[in-house]
């Protein structure tokens, strides 16, 4: 006789029979009966009618039977709340049982029954069990608090269970500590601001001690909790890292990943020149490599995480390229992920190896994989310039195979290579043209047409080629139609004599015979351009194109930061923030990496700012600048960088900064962020200096359908160290269609970095929906301080001392002195002296910028002439 017989009874009087058996006197028979009931329950039969009979079996000293009955209760109590109350007495009694197994069982089961009446009775036993002498009971009780909190959060708070739970963090048994941490973390997640997990160096120390002793699963709870802590300084960060690193060699990959998460996060705090930083980098590589020898499912999840880690810190795995080479028996999803990481790690040092691999992959059987491999070769060419030539010749070899999809992919990537390295590889065009007929995918056709149009002057029969596409114009996809239209217009502009007919044909096809508005509009634009001003058309259509940037599919930095905080979780598999796919309140909190170490990485920041202008300033670049932003309002002290800021700022002020002098008008409200670009949030505003305080006056308008809350603001480093002097005061939630005016006082003690233009300010505004970035310019006049009036003597002496190269002269047109002077005064531009020479009024003025730079100006006014000449001198006070 085996248990499987329980699943086989299907007779009609079954319930009745079971009832009789449950009420039997024989223990063995009762147990058998309960097993049958549970079996029916498992396969989805409704056995709730047996509730009273099963509950009657509850009072037994047979633990096995008791467990079965409890199992039944957990399942049916909710549907039979009135009857469930019958069980309460036994539960309470069991919580006092001398056997710890029974005590724990009772409290565990009660926590799983979501019936109010039972919950009421749970409090007292739970309180006792939390202080039980047996750790098995305590650890069960700790989890029970989390269960109870989910049912009735208020009750848990009122009963003071949270404090008891906090005490359990110091328990002598590591398993109890682990469960207490897990329970507290879960409760804390539903109360983001409760500060429930009051992590301080003492508790962290306790957790780290428990970490060494508890089970692998407990280690995961503790590590995940540690990841939420922000160390006070780099030394604390380092000491935690040191104690977490041994976990990296654990056999359980979940422990390893949780440890990696903690380390990746705390590494942010470590200065890069620290020896330990290098050591840590080295230690992170082997465990990640080891993950790749696990079963394919784990490998896939690991690769998704490695993809994130590589984007954040490529140096960790830069020497490990080989482990990402695909094995022939890898499942396709592992292969594709590996390819992606190979490209991310590709560099001049390893490109030869990578290319050799990719070439092999391009001849494999799986079509998806081959396509991606071919594309990868193109991406290598774009990423590593030295390899471009070899990549192109590899692609040409592949085109020779004439395998249809290989050829098409190759053509798509070659188009990108042309855009990255213009006028270098056009010799291959002939080969490409040979394969024109085999192209049947829109993307490849569009790419080929683009190439023909772009290089029409080098292809003798370009008109024939394009004409051949034109025959089936209406059957093509929009992508191809648009490309064909543009290509023929380009061709016409290059060879106008022979192609007039062709261009007319395509224009009429696009404008008259097509019902696609995009195509029609583009057609009309070309048509009018060509008919009104062919020279302008040439300038527009054949304009030099910006080069494409290297990495096109990088994850946006703020998202990447958030994902790094979620290493090892589903978010890291989907590469989406948890709020995007987890329902409910949990996970809505955006986690952030801690701010960078206090020695600012000035050189790299400057490098970002001076990014080669050839690259399209995509949104990514701007975001790169804001990468170091921490979105909590900071009140940093004065930075020592100010003095260097003065030197670099001096000449630029003369260059262009003073242009904005003419725009002193403080009513200069601009829309900084249109609602369309910020998920419904519109930000407009202006800057002003009022009573010695620089203010940013903003209007936030909610044009979305949902309420906006949790506003915060942060500036990127800027030329004059402007920074918010306090948090953004939006105290009430912003309802749809509501606007609020906010005045944000600013100070000038923030970090300094030269911007271009000088008065450019990059701002990040956060709300409960997302983070938005914009840049705006402030009038330089807001920086003129009130004590900018110089003594006459000092003015004279200084005027002579300032070297010529600090001098600049320009004209202001159409200005009226009377109107100007009052404005000048209001803007802290002080007139020191006035004299008249040769019928010209000379005004001498001084102003002082917030960073200590003096500007001395001479304003020359000729009576009756509205054009003024200004001579400006800059003086940096050496204090």
């Amino acid at each position: 006789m085996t248990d499987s017989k329980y699943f086989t009874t299907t007779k009609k009087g079954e319930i009745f029979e079971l009832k009789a058996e449950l009420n039997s006197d024989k223990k063995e028979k009762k147990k058998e009966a309960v097993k049958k009931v549970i079996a029916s329950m498992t396969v989805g039969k409704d056995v709730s009618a047996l509730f009273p009979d099963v509950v009657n079996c509850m009072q037994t000293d047979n633990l096995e039977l008791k467990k079965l009955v409890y199992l039944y209760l957990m399942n049916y109590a909710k549907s039979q709340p009135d009857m469930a109350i019958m069980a309460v007495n036994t539960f309470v009694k069991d919580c006092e049982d001398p056997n710890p197994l029974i005590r724990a069982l009772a409290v565990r089961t009660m926590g799983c029954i979501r019936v109010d009446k039972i919950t009421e009775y749970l409090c007292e036993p739970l309180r006792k069990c939390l202080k039980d002498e047996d750790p098995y009971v305590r650890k069960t009780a700790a989890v029970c608090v989390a269960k109870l909190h989910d049912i009735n959060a208020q009750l848990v708070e009122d009963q003071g269970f949270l404090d008891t739970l906090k005490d359990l963090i110091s328990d002598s048994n590591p398993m109890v500590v682990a469960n207490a941490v897990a329970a507290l973390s879960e409760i804390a997640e539903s109360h983001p601001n409760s500060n429930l997990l009051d992590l301080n160096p003492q508790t962290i120390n306790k957790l780290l001690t428990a970490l060494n002793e508890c089970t692998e699963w407990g280690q995961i709870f503790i590590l995940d909790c540690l990841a939420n802590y922000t160390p006070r300084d780099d030394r604390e960060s380092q000491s935690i890292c040191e104690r977490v690193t041994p976990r990296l060699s654990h056999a359980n990959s979940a422990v390893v990943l949780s440890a990696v998460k903690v380390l990746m996060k705390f590494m942010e705090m470590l200065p890069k020149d620290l020896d330990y930083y290098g050591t840590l980098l080295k230690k992170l590589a082997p465990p990640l490599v080891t993950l790749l020898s696990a079963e394919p499912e784990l490998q896939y999840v690991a690769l998704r995480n490695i993809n994130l880690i590589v984007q954040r810190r490529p140096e960790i795995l830069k020497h490990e390229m080989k482990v990402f080479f695909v094995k022939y028996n890898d499942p396709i999803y592992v292969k594709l992920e590996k390819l992606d990481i190979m490209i991310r790690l590709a560099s001049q040092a390893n490109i030869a190896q990578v290319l050799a691999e990719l070439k092999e992959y391009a001849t494999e059987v799986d079509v998806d994989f081959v396509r991606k491999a071919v594309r990868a070769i193109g991406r290598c060419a774009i990423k590593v310039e030295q390899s471009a030539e070899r990549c192109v010749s590899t692609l040409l070899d592949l085109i020779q195979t004439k395998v249809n999809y290989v050829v098409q992919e190759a053509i798509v990537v070659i188009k990108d290579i042309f855009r990255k390295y213009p006028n270098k590889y056009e010799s291959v065009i002939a080969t490409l043209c040979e394969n024109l007929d085999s192209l049947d995918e829109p993307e490849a056709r569009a790419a080929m047409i683009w190439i023909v149009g772009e290089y029409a002057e080098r292809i003798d029969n370009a008109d024939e080629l394009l004409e051949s596409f034109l025959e089936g114009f209406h059957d093509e996809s929009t992508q191809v139609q648009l490309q064909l239209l543009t290509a023929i217009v380009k061709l016409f502009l290059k060879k106008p004599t022979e192609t007039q007919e062709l261009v007319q044909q395509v224009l009429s096809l696009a404008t008259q015979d097509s019902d696609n508005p995009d195509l029609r509009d583009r057609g009309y634009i070309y048509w009018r351009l060509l008919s009104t001003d062919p020279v302008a058309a040439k300038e527009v259509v054949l304009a030099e194109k910006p080069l494409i940037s290297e990495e096109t599919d990088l994850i946006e930095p703020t998202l990447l930061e958030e994902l790094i905080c979620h290493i090892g979780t589903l978010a890291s598999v989907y590469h989406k923030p948890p709020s995007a796919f987890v329902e409910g309140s949990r996970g809505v909190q955006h986690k952030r990496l801690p701010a960078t170490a206090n020695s600012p990485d000035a050189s790299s920041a400057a490098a970002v700012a001076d990014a080669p202008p050839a690259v399209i300033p995509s949104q990514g670049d701007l975001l790169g600048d804001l990468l170091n932003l921490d979105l909590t309002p900071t009140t940093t002290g004065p930075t020592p960088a100010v003095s260097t800021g003065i030197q670099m700022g001096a000449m630029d002020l003369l260059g262009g900064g003073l242009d904005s002098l003419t725009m002193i008008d403080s009513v200069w409200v601009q829309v900084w962020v249109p609602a369309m670009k910020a998920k419904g949030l519109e930000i407009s505003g202006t800057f002003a200096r009022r009573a010695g305080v620089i203010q940013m006056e903003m209007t936030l308008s909610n044009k979305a359908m949902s309420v906006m809350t949790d506003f915060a603001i942060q500036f990127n480093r800027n030329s004059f160290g402007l920074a918010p002097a306090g948090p953004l005061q939006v105290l009430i939630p912003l309802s749809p269609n509501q606007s609020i005016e906010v005045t944000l006082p600013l100070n000038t003690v923030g970090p300094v970095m030269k911007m271009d233009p000088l008065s450019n300010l990059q701002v990040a505004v956060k709300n409960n929906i997302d983070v938005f970035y914009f840049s705006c310019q402030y009038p330089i006049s807001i920086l003129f301080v009130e004590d900018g009036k110089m003594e006459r003597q000092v003015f004279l002496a200084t005027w002579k001392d300032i070297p010529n190269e600090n001098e600049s002269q320009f004209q202001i047109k159409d200005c009226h002195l009377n109107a100007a002077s009052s404005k000048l005064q209001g803007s802290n531009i002080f007139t020191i002296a006035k004299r008249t020479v040769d019928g010209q009024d000379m005004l001498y003025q001084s102003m002082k910028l917030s960073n200590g730079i003096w500007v001395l100006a001479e304003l020359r006014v000729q009576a009756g002439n509205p054009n003024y000449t200004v001579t400006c001198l800059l003086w940096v006070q050496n204090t």
Partner: protein
Amino acid sequence: MVTALPGDQPPVVMRHKDRYFVHVRQGGLFWVATTTADSSPFTIIEFLNRLSALVKDYCGVLNETNITENFALIYELLDEVLDYGYIQTTSSDILKNFIQTEAVSSKQFNLFDLSNVGLFGADTQQSKVAPSTAATRPIQGSREGGKSEIFVDVIERMSVVIGSNGVLMKADVEGEIRVKCYMPNCSEIRIGLNEEFSIGKSQLRGYGAAVRVDECSFHQAVRLDEFDNHRILRLSPSQGELTVMQYLLSDELPSAPPFRLFPTIERDKGGRLIVYLKLRCDLPPNSLFISPCVFNIVVSLSQELSSPDQRAELRPESRAVVWNIPRFAGGTQLSALFKLDIPDLSSASLLEVGPVSLSFELPKLTATGLQIRFLRLSPIQPSQSQRWVRYVTHSDSYTIRV
């Protein structure tokens, strides 16, 4: 009920409405966990694997009947292992204290029934080593006596890439030491490894050829106090299966790769593709037999095979020729000639031939050279107890480019 899932979802994790499903496949059964939160798939996958191992430990064999037969036991296990989604423990030693239900076993253990061996983790390839019934025995059964036995398996997986010019491009070995213990009164096992065993690149020990690995991780039950000096692993065995040590050797093999291939691929006048393969086994002569070998020649051409000279078959769906070799002695050489009729064969098509992939199993051999020096049990076990120390090397991915 989930009936179908969109195809664009990543494997491993599947989504249906707000619920995420994570599954693994063990013993022909799907083990599925669901979550609605942003939990860790690593934790879930590791847990499902442990759970299946636990159920196997408790029920003996993993199959559908056994699961239905022991549903009460599995419910009880789950109840102890998971509390409100928090994993409590997966150690069979600790769980022993809580579990009340006895395992039910429908099948009489039969020495000749080898269908459920799977000792080496490979379901398809049967071991030539006689397995013991103990391997498929529920651990609790051993409480009532029975044979006391211990198995120590050293299992290695090789992945090798040999370039078309014969140069070894990549060679990794992943290995593990697994212990299966069915000795109720054994308190400590001491496993001695080669004394010259070294970890990392810099460290060298002993005089002989060092047995070296790059990375090494141990089960947390292993005590390493004698490891540094004497290369001895100490552990208190739990009943059931335990992976004691895992290691990894990358980019270096202590000896030449076991198989070399000398291919010739050309086009004959009749437009046929001629593939001539010469395969050499570089293992010590007379020492080894390699049991079933499958050679996958991925020929990316889906055409008819005109005259197969060897025991081989063409698989058009994967565009491959498969060459089966049941046994292959060390130090010998085999050859095969394939002729493939392919219309429109161009010289460029030759680029598409290959690579050759080999799968094999090498018993009594470790690629790293790791050996178990001794296996000591304390207290000293009665003489009828059996000890098995077994070595095997599998191919994980053995690819030769042509």
